[in-house]
């Protein structure tokens, strides 16, 4: 892996920025170079919130990419925006709880995860972002699930520490859901 | 033979230590010199000279720094309260004062003076109000009296077109951050004595950490008013005082108590 670019996009409040930071921390802790950059336009006030994470063994130049290797889309507007931008042969993880259409291209490895439903089963609807991250790590194992869990436990803000087990659970279930979905496709 | 006894010499009047021995550049009859001297006397009497930092304005008193024997800086037009804030916040133990005219304080520096007062900056402001721009040659100021002729209100200040004079002391006294706001005049000896007392109170306000203090001094500008020096003093008493009443607008009650 030379350089992997990941875009995580959704509504403001879905935790896309934080889930990107968790990946960035995990990458740093495992001796990768990493950049994390949010979209900070007027849209951050209420609308779409997205961030770009780049993980690399080499020095990172641009923190932004036109065509990400991996897109994690938590709502329909994000799918509309990033489906056609994702690199051919790249990965796309979509939140089927809020996205009611399939893909218009067939050159992407992809998985649909009902992240909101899974999060609600866990008992905390804002865990949807972590479900998606779990799914992404299964589809595109840039980092191992364990490494990301470790990073999360070290960098979760103190006020949210009590939700750590639910975060782990969310990632685990997202991962397993993706694993099963991919197995079904393969079968 | 014994030497004749030396006559006893006693100093009854001298230049304050806070003053340099330069001759000021001010016009004959201008009261800037009086105001300068009062400040120097008060700083001497309070023993503040060695810790005082003055902030000179832009206007006729742009050269004020030359006449005070103490550390001084010279601010951009209207920004003296901001500069004083910057200084006082990093040197809170020092005494910091600004010296500003009406164009500087009430026109271009309106935002800076209002917000310094609103923050309760622990600085002292000496506000020279002579109802005109002196340095640029006699233009209408925010404190120019209705009907008053200046080079930029050649037919007399028409309040329909140019509005009314601004009463800074009254306005600043509404700010909770202020500790001492008064207006005095320099048109006769009695008032000059009162002005000195007010300056003492203003610096005392700062020394006691009671917030923003300002003394507004009604002053003359014979050159730009185009009247002779003695008539200009009458002008202050008869024309300016009715518009700018001499009063205490804010006096923190702590100031009436003896210092602990």
């Amino acid at each position, binding site marked *: 892996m030379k350089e992997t670019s990941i875009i995580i996009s959704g509504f403001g409040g879905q935790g896309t920025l934080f889930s990107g*930071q968790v990946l*960035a*921390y995990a990458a*740093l802790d495992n001796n990768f*170079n*990493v*950049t*994390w*950059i*949010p979209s*900070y*336009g*007027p849209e951050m006030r209420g609308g779409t919130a997205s961030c770009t994470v780049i993980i690399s063994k*080499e*020095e*990172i*130049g*641009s*923190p*932004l*990419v*036109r*065509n990400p290797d991996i897109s994690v889309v938590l709502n329909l507007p994000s799918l509309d925006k990033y489906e056609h931008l994702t690199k051919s042969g790249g990965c796309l993880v979509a939140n089927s709880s809020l996205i009611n259409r399939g893909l218009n291209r067939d050159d992407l490895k992809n998985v649909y995860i009902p992240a909101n439903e899974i999060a609600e089963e866990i008992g905390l609807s804002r865990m949807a972002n972590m479900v998606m991250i779990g799914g992404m790590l299964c589809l595109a194992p840039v980092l191992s699930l364990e490494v990301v869990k470790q990073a999360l436990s070290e960098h979760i803000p103190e006020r949210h520490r009590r939700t750590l087990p639910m975060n782990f659970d969310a990632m685990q279930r997202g991962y397993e859901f993706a694993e099963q979905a991919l197995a079904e496709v393969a079968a | 033979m014994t030497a004749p006894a030396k006559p006893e010499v006693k100093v009854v009047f001298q230049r304050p230590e806070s003053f340099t021995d330069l001759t000021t550049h001010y016009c004959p009859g201008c009261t800037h010199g009086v105001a300068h001297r009062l400040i120097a006397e008060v700083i001497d009497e309070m023993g503040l*000279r*060695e*810790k*005082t*930092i003055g*902030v*000179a304005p832009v206007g006729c008193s*742009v050269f004020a*720094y030359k006449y*005070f*024997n*103490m*550390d*001084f*800086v*010279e*601010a*951009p037009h209207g*920004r003296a309260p*901001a*500069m*004083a*804030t*910057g*200084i006082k*916040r*990093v*040197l809170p133990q*020092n*005494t910091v004062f600004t010296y500003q005219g009406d164009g500087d304080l009430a026109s271009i520096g309106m*935002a*800076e003076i*209002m*917000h310094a007062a609103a*923050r309760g900056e622990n600085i002292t402001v000496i506000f020279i109000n002579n109802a005109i721009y002196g340095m640029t040659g006699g233009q209408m100021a925010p404190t120019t009296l209705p009907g008053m002729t200046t080079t930029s209100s050649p037919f007399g200040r028409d309040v329909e077109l140019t509005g009314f004079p601004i009463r800074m002391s009254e306005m600043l006294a509404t700010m909770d951050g202020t500790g001492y706001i008064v207006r005095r005049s320099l048109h006769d000896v009695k008032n000059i004595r009162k002005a000195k007392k007010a300056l003492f109170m203003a610096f005392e306000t700062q020394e006691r950490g009671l917030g923003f203090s300002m003394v507004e001094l009604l002053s003359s500008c014979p050159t730009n008013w185009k009247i002779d020096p003695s008539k200009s003093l009458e002008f202050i008493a008869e024309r300016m005082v009715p518009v700018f009443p001499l009063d205490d607008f804010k006096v923190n009650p702590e100031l009436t108590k003896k210092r602990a």
Partner: protein
Amino acid sequence: MAKELLKGNEAFAEAAIRAGCEGFYGYPITPSTEFLEYMAKRMPQLGRAFVQAESEVAAVNMVYGAACTGKRTMTASSSPGISLMMEGISYIAGTEVPAVIVNVIRGGPGLGNIAPSQGDYYQMVKGGGHGDYFPIVLAPASVQETVDCIILAFDLADKYRSIVHVIVDGNLGQMMEPAELPPMRELPKEPPEWAVTGAKGREPNFLSSIYIDPADEEVTNIRLVKRWMEIEKNEVRYNELMMEDAEFAVIGFGTAGRVASSAVRAAREEGIKVGLFRPISLAPFPKKEVEEISKRVQRILVVEMNSGMMLDDIVPLVEGRVPVEFYGRMGGMTPFPDEILDEIRRVSENKAPVNGNARAEWIARLEKIVEEGK
């Protein structure tokens, strides 16, 4: 200390604190506000001065006042705020007191937007305020480099009693990247001898930019110019990537330079012998280095996030030895690496002379790119 994942604006503010900044005065403006917010929290904790001023005009004059006391002081703002500060900046320069000003540049002119830009190059590098003065301008390209540049900025400001601008953009201000903060510096015990601190046991100090006699002002101007020549000699800084054997040179600073580094690496993989020259000090500008480059490459591509402002400084240095081409995005648009890679490919195959109007050729190409909706 190990590298941590740090947020741009916050890391820059902490760097200033560790460099010994004792007074921060500012006004909120996107995309630099986190700087102010961080200072609002940290400075009082350390017993240092923080004021949210009523305007950028007031903020810069507070910096001016604090600078006169000899304490390390600064402000951080963004383009429209910096325009308002130009009055105070000129006075600070004329008074020869040290101050550090961070400009997180955004798209303009006018209100523009809050997206990353390099459109303030002229305003920063050429002075911006009235009168004869030369500010030092540093343009870092990563969170770590910005941290280092802010420390350096305070040191240079003190050394030369000069204004030092550190210019970044919203990309750097908003991004997170691993970086290492330096240890906390001890504050100086004694103020410099020129500072106003109260004339205790010494002659009074007076600090101002007023020299009413033109002959006196000219003496000051001579001093400022000579100091600047000293700065030009000592303080040029830049970074090079794969320039040793380069046949083509890309020149870009800050974010544009950083994005170009991705494109240069990709072009190398295609076998194009291209390198990147990235000025860090925009003032003093690495003139000699650019001249030397123009003697050993076939073609130069300048990349900026403005309309070719640094280009105007580079063309005269090249003296027509090789064609200089330009690619820029404006208005708050950050170029993607693939755009610059396309440009590198084009430039490496272009044998035609560029007859001095790189800007005109670029704007025609850019219009097409914009029409295609890229």
